[in-house]
Each structure stands twice: as structure tokens, then as C-alpha cells.
């Protein structure tokens, strides 16, 4: 087991800098999820840790040792690929044993490790099969098994669940969680799916266009997004982000809807401020009883998800999405009064997208 750290790492492909100077520290035994939209450089970062790509500048350390010049095979890490990368001409058993044979472990030890991993992953009956004779979920398990038997210092996962159907994905998510609890191996998990990030991470690292936007525990990031990008990316459905104007001690959005600025932010807020409220933080109230801002909301359409319903509509000319109980959804065309939960309105500097801080 080991900690992993990146210091001022950049990556350039030709003239295209896909990773801007990055500093990342991953603790021993921690499960860190790197999450961000496609093309933001997650895989590249993971491959730099694995040694499959070279960092253009900066330093990578695993277990305190500088590994920039170390071959992938000598970094003592295991990686699970999105397409699983199983060796198609080898049986499940041989796929798992491959790395151990190369490391010249005694064959009794190899068998023991393979059997143990097969037991954990319920692959016992399939050890003699070839990968093409397995279902997607089983292949995924073999890929995990190949990583586990190595007993490496760290696991690297590159979107390992994105080729599975929705149900299997949930199941594998739970299994990965369980596995990490029992093995406690340092893990770096890359995904574009914020639900995976929220559910798996001890800490998550939200990436955007080659930079790290925010690092933190999932709930911290959800509660305190550092930028409009993070606010919009983490949480589903996404946070309502409405551009507004500074007026006196508040921010006006649409035509005359005013959100009062907390005292601490009044000195930092400039002319253009974006107001953010999560759909689940807008509550339906009766007119007149509202202390803070009251939104006169008109429902345009209703999406029923079962437990919840999403109301799409507008207040004072600005669009909002609101989440309500599935059985208490109004009809399209209805008018409601909404108020944000106290302390759940976020203010961002519009030009930079950064959260306003007191």
C-alpha cells in the first residue's frame, strides 16, 4: 500500500496542453474518484500515474518514491481498463495468473491467490472459460480479479463500469465499495458519472478542462461547490444557475426577483453575480408566509420519476427546475410560490465562475 502524489504535473500532446499544472495528494488506503466530463484529461492523469504516459513536467511519487523514470511494471500498481483488456487467448485462470507467473511466484501461491480472488468475485465456475464465453459483468469481475491477485500498492480504475447496463453498474459499484473496505488498498477511480463519484469516493477530485476545480469529500463538494462548473456538474438534476446583477445589498435575476446577499459577501460581490439554487432546495410554500425571497413560479412541464417529480418552469422570466414529492406534483400551467431553504442559495462571480467567499 502506498500514497500517491503529483507535483506540478502537466501533459502536452504536441502543442496541446491537456493537463495544466496539477497538484494532487492521495493518502494511503484512500479511495479517490476523479470525476469530470469527457475529454477533461482524467484518463491522461491516470495513465501518468500508471506510467503509460510520461508527464511533460512535474513529479509523480508513489509511496514517497519518485517514479517518473520507473517502468509501469516496476510501479507495483494494477489497472482496470474500460474495455477490461482481458487477454482473449487465455482462460480466466490464466488471465489472473499472468502477472503472478511473470513475477515468478511459486505455483502453489499463484493457485491460492487466484482461488481466493475467484471466491471473492464469484468467478469459481468460470476459471476454465475464455473471456469471450463470459457476460459483460463477468468480464468486469475478471478484470478486477486480475488486479486483486497482484496485491498491488494501488488500484487504478479507468471508467470500469461504463460498459455495463444500469443494474449491473449499481451492483458492481457496491462490490467495489465492499472490496475496498476489506482490502483497504489505495484506489484511484476515474469516471464521468457523478453518481459513481458521489457513492464511491472518500474524496473526489472534480476536473474540468485539464485543471482540478475542487477536491473534497462528496458531501462537502455537494454542499459547498467552489465554482459554477462544480455546482452544475455534481448533483442531479443540476443546480439552477441564473445570471443576475448586483443591486444594493442583493442580486436581481430576471425581472425584479431579488436574492439578498449575506453580509459577508457584500464586499466581494461585483456587478455580475450568478445565483445558484438546487432543485431540491426550493420548497413550495403558501404566499405571504415567506420570509426570504419568494419566487412566483409557473409550471411549464412535469417530469415524473416516481418518488420525485421535476417541475420545469420560470419565475420572473428566469428558468428553474424544482424537485417535489412524486405524488404532490401540480399540473402544467399551475402557479406556485417557492422559497429557497435558508442558507442554500449560492452566489458566484459570473466572469470567473468562482464561488463568492466572505
Amino acid at each position: 500500500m502506498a500514497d500517491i502524489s503529483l507535483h506540478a504535473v502537466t501533459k502536452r500532446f504536441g502543442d496541446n496542453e491537456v493537463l495544466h499544472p496539477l497538484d494532487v495528494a492521495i493518502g494511503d488506503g484512500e479511495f479517490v474518484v476523479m470525476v469530470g466530463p469527457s475529454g477533461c484529461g482524467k484518463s491522461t492523469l491516470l495513465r501518468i500515474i500508471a506510467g503509460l504516459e510520461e508527464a511533460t513536467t512535474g513529479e509523480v511519487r508513489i509511496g514517497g518514491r519518485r517514479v517518473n523514470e520507473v517502468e509501469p511494471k516496476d510501479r507495483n500498481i494494477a489497472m482496470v481498463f474500460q474495455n477490461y483488456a482481458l487477454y482473449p487467448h487465455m482462460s480466466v485462470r490464466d488471465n489472473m495468473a499472468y502477472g503472478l507467473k511473470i513475477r515468478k511466484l511459486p505455483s502453489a501461491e499463484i493457485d491460492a491467490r487466484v482461488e481466493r480472488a475467484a471466491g471473492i468475485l464469484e468467478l469459481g465456475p468460470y476459471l476454465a472459460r475464455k473471456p469471450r464465453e463470459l457476460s459483460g459483468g463477468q468480464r468486469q469481475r475478471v478484470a478486477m480479479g486480475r488486479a486483486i491477485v497482484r496485491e498491488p500498492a494501488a488500484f487504478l480504475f479507468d471508467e470500469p463500469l461504463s460498459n455495463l447496463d444500469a443494474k449491473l453498474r449499481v451492483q458492481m459499484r457496491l462490490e467495489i465499495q465492499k472490496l475496498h473496505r476489506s482490502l483497504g488498498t489505495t484506489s484511484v477511480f476515474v469516471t464521468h458519472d457523478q453518481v459513481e463519484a458521489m457513492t464511491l469516493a472518500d474524496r473526489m477530485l472534480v476536473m474540468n478542462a485539464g485543471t482540478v476545480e475542487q477536491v473534497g469529500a462528496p458531501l462537502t463538494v455537494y454542499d459547498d461547490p467552489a465554482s459554477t462548473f462544480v455546482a452544475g456538474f455534481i448533483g442531479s438534476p443540476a443546480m439552477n444557475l441564473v445570471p443576475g446583477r448586483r443591486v444594493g445589498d442583493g442580486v436581481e435575476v430576471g425581472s425584479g426577483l431579488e436574492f439578498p446577499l449575506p453580509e459577508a459577501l457584500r464586499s466581494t460581490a461585483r456587478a455580475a453575480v450568478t445565483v445558484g439554487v438546487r432543485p431540491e432546495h426550493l420548497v413550495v410554500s403558501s404566499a405571504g408566509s415567506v420570509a426570504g425571497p419568494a419566487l412566483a413560479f409557473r409550471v411549464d412541464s412535469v417530469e415524473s420519476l416516481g418518488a420525485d417529480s421535476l417541475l420545469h418552469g420560470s419565475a420572473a422570466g428566469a428558468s428553474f427546475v424544482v424537485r417535489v414529492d412524486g405524488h404532490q406534483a401540480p399540473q402544467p400551467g399551475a402557479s406556485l410560490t417557492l422559497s429557497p431553504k435558508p442558507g442554500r442559495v449560492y452566489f458566484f462571480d459570473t466572469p470567473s465562475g468562482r464561488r463568492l467567499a466572505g
Partner: protein
Amino acid sequence: MEKRVVFRSSWLPYLLVAPQIAITVVFFFWPAFQAVFYSFFLQDAFGTQSQFVGLANFAELFRSESYLNSIRVTAVFSTLVTVMGLAVALALAVAADGILRGALAYKTLLIWPYAVASAVAGVLFAFLFAPSVGIISYVLRGMGVDWNWVLRGEQAMLLVVIATVWKQISYNFLFFLAGLQAIPRSLIEAAAIDGAGPVRRFWTIVFPLLSPTTFFLLVVNIVHAFFDTFGVIDATTQGGPAGATQILVYKVYYDGVKAADLGGSSAQSVVLMAIVIALTVVQFRYIERRVQY
């Protein structure tokens, strides 16, 4: 949905395939039939009289020291051509797969030899290696090698093998390169992380995954060495010296045309036909199923 084209008139489809059928009949079935026919007859030296002899021509063939020698020569020749052709082409394809810059120029250069006719390749190498004037012979002599393939059988064999391999490499190279590029990069990366160095990755991952390509090329190259190398031999050694490069195909021509032994030559053709049919069956049987992995 009916995927086949349906013709309304009954004779049009036959008319459309008639040229192909005619060509096959005139240039393949008729000579093949004739070869089988003549293989049962003995002709006199002037070609005026012929006499039915049953299987005597075949019996004669397998007693003849020169025919048995030709079988040995063919075995050596086709083994060398196939093994060298595949090995060199695979090495070049692995190199080409690895490089990014200048890859196109490199590939184009390697593909050119395929556009050269066998006989031209033969003449080219005959000149390069000509004992008295060839530039390579000059270099070899400079290095103290007694180079004279006109007199030395093993050198003559080496020459025809090199000329054939040179021409065949392009074809093998293209297939190997395509095969290599079809192997997902992540497999190689997974093996690298699993601890395999480049050599082990090649032998445990790349080479097994290339086996369908390798098997296909193996059959194609054997067939080529057996049947398509007349031009190279004729342009260089003409089977000599003393039959050292007289492969079966060349002997058919030599005995039939030069020595006017029509019956013996026909019997040899029939044997060759049996071999090519056997190879084709092997190819279809295994290529259809692919090599299993």
C-alpha cells in the same frame, strides 16, 4: 427481404457468367483434363505416336532419382521461403507498428516490391549477384566469400530464396501490419502493467493473437513457393546447377518442354494438382474456423 438479384429472363444470368466460365474451361479445366489424360500415355521421342501405359508414368516418376531430388529441393526451398518471408515481414511489421513519424514512407517503400513481376525480381537479383559483374558478388568476394552460384548448388538455392522472399515480404508485411494494428493497445498496456517486458509481451500476447494471420500467410506462402516461383527460377538459375534449384513446377516445364517427355510431365502436373487441392482444403478448413484462441 430477398437479397439476391432475381432475373426475369432465364438465359441472361448464364450469358453474364459465360465469359468467366469460358476462361476457366479453356485455361484451367481443359489443360487439367489434358494433363490427366496424357499422364496415362507414353509418347515416343518425336511426339508422333502414343501408347496407353496406365499408371506406369507415376510409378516411373517415384522411382526417378531426379524427381525425388526435385521433391527434396522443393521442400527445402518452400520451407526457407516461408520461414524467412514470414520472419522478416513480421519483424518489419512490428517495427512499422511502433513508429509514428515517417510511417507512411516506410510502409510505401516496403510495399513496392510487390508491384514487381517475379521474373523481373529474378533478373534483378541475378544481376546483383552475378558471379562476374554483380555488385553484391563483388562485396562478397571482398569479404572473402567464394561466391559462384552458377557452380555451387547451395548458393544458387540461397539466391532464388532471397529473390522470392524479397518479393513476398510486401504481401506478408501488409497482412502482419493489419493484424498488429487490430490488437487493442490496452491489451499491451495491461501486459506491461502486469510486469511483462517487450519481448515477453510479444511472445505471450502479440504473437498468439496474430496466429490467424500467421496461419493464413503460412498457407499462402507455401502455395506461392510451390507454384508461383517459375519466373524467378527461369530468370536466374533455370533449375541448375545440376538440379539444385529444380523445384517441382520448374521440372514440369523442363521435362515437358525441353525434354519433350509429355507423359512424365503430365504425371508430374497431376501430382502438383493433388498438392494444391490438398493445400486449398487445409486452408478452407482452418481459415473458416479461424485458429482458435
